[in-house]
């Protein structure tokens, strides 16, 4: 198996089940009985991967991946073989106690599945095990599947917000950094515009 999904630390499953029931019972994230706009009975969740985030400062410092921080665990929600949403679980210092749980709908799940399928076709991935991660730089609106093992990193953006980066194409870290550098460097211009 070319992509190796890591095992998450122990999760408070009772809390997670209650929180999902609370969301399903409300009219948030879809009508009552639904999560991410789909009937709960039709939903499955996929092997989780870690959610990492990086910053514009890291881009400027040429440490886009080196300074990335693991934030949470991401479970893709699927209806059949189509990605329809995500469950994001952020563990506390005590993993079994009340994690932060967020449910997202939207195209990121399906795009991630497509990116993972593309990842499996990369020769370096087929030959040696690689850990898939999800990387987001929220301040730069960048999101990608990050393929990682010691000495090997590739990024497959799932949204082409950056004009120089195409969605679902494989890039090296340096290429991504170069594409985002100018925008990251402009961050100081925006600090005052609060209202």
């Amino acid at each position, binding site marked *: 198996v070319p*992509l190796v999904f890591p095992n998450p630390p122990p999760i408070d499953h009772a809390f997670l089940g209650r929180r999902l029931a609370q969301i399903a019972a409300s009219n948030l994230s879809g009508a009552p009985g639904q999560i991410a706009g789909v009937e709960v009975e039709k939903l499955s969740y996929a092997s989780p991967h870690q959610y990492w985030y990086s910053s514009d400062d890291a881009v400027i410092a040429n440490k886009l991946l080196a300074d990335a921080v693991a934030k949470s665990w991401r479970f893709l929600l699927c209806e059949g073989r189509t990605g329809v949403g995500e469950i994001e679980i952020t563990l506390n210092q005590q993993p079994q106690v009340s994690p932060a749980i967020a449910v997202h709908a939207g195209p990121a799940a399906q795009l991630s599945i497509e990116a993972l*399928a593309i990842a499996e076709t990369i020769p370096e991935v087929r030959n040696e095990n690689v850990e898939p991660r999800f990387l987001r730089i929220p301040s730069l609106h960048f999101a990608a599947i990050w393929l990682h093992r010691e000495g090997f990193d590739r990024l497959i953006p799932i949204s082409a917000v950056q004009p120089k980066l195409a969605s679902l194409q494989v890039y090296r870290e340096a290429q991504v950094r170069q594409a985002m550098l100018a925008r990251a460097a402009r961050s100081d211009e925006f600090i005052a515009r609060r209202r």
Partner: protein
Amino acid sequence: MSAWPESLTSFPLEPLITKAHENRTLSAIVTEFAVTQGVSVRLPFVAQKQLQCEWCWAAVATSVGLFYGTGNWTQCEVATEQINTMIKADKIRHCCDGLAQSDCNIDGYLFFSLDQVRSVDRWSPFRPAPSQLYGKLSHDKQLVCFRIAWLPTKKRAHFTTICGCTDPSQGGPFLIETSDTLKDYPGATLAYDDFPMNYNGASGEWTDTFYTAGRFAQTTACGNGERAIVSINNGGDCASLILRGGQLFSNVGRIDYLSKSVNWGQQTAVGVGTLGSIGLDDAGNCVALYTKNDRLFYRLATLDPATRTLSWGAESDYGSGQRNSLAMMDHSVFLEAHEDQGILYTRAGWLRGDDKIDWDTRKPFDNGILVGIAASGGKSCVELHAGVGDDAGNLFATPGKIDFLRQKVEWGKTQAVAVGSRGGVTLGAGVRCMLSFIGNGSTCVRSGRINPETNAISWYPVQTLARADDVDIAIDDLGRCVLICSDRGSLNSLVGRY
């Protein structure tokens, strides 16, 4: 369908929930939570995806304006105005014309953008309490927008909108739903306590809250009458002239802009007549106009600041005509318009201070019926009238520039502005113009903006409100307005804004 990654395994979600509830059925669990959680609210709001990577502010404002129906807003039009007026006023940019990648794709202000789309209520540096947030969404049906500064640097920020939440009074977890402008991130459902520390895969800090509002609040009952005219001043006072059974009555109200309601007082008899108009200025001077047997009459009063009542002076005849209207201006001056034998006339009036008015000579300006007049700042005015003959059933508006020295109004281009019967017109400072009229049995409101250079009005789309038989509107210089509607003999007032 695209290929499924062979490395990816999936598991059914339902057991994750049922196992946590002693293997009871999913429907039983959902039903139980639905009862114990109370009524969650989710407004039918979907944020537009931002068309440029820096345009979360433009996308949020555009989406909110469209949600409240205040205009046919687009992101590039909002961005164009904001960038040229608030952000980089050094040269004119047209952000709908392909410049968006360079000059236009920049950060902007949400508050001013919401103001542009006429959907801002107020800004706050504080995060709302759960009960306050629930009240906004559930009771007021109002969206709440906010700014997140991304940690750890806080150099970059993002605007987004809360469109749904659970009922915090039931003791369960307070969950919220956001609707986001990001292309691959339509929003999230999560606990309020976790937000925005755990949002969009990162950590954010809540820095600003933007309360939004539609333009009009709920109606407030204000007595009975077949028709009523309303006037407001900049001090929060409002006066109405009511027709009921051939008799005219006045009423004074105090506008509470926070609760968006009018506290009306007791009605006072004015006399016998047909409406008519009423005008109230910032000094408390009040003029009532009405007609009897094709003659024009006025009475004057001064608002008593202590009792908030009007004591009307003697009735005065000032000529022949029907359907008279007036617009108060500064310095005890007002503009009057009326109809006489199908011809529309206007003139200025001057309050002498002895319960009398000095009148300019009336001047004809158009043909029509049911004329209304509005003025602001002693310089601008707008007339509204109903067409006759082939134009019957249409309302026409004309902007004008007042020239007191020459005792005339320089009229601009007349435009057909609505299909409907009788209407009211009002004009505030900053060239804000509003019309009210009855269309298909409902109150309709239309806002416009005068271009002083061209002496023409750009009109926004018509907004339809509650059922009514008759309606009038008045605006102050800050763009706050009061509508008064009659519906089968009952009068209602609504507080709103431009």
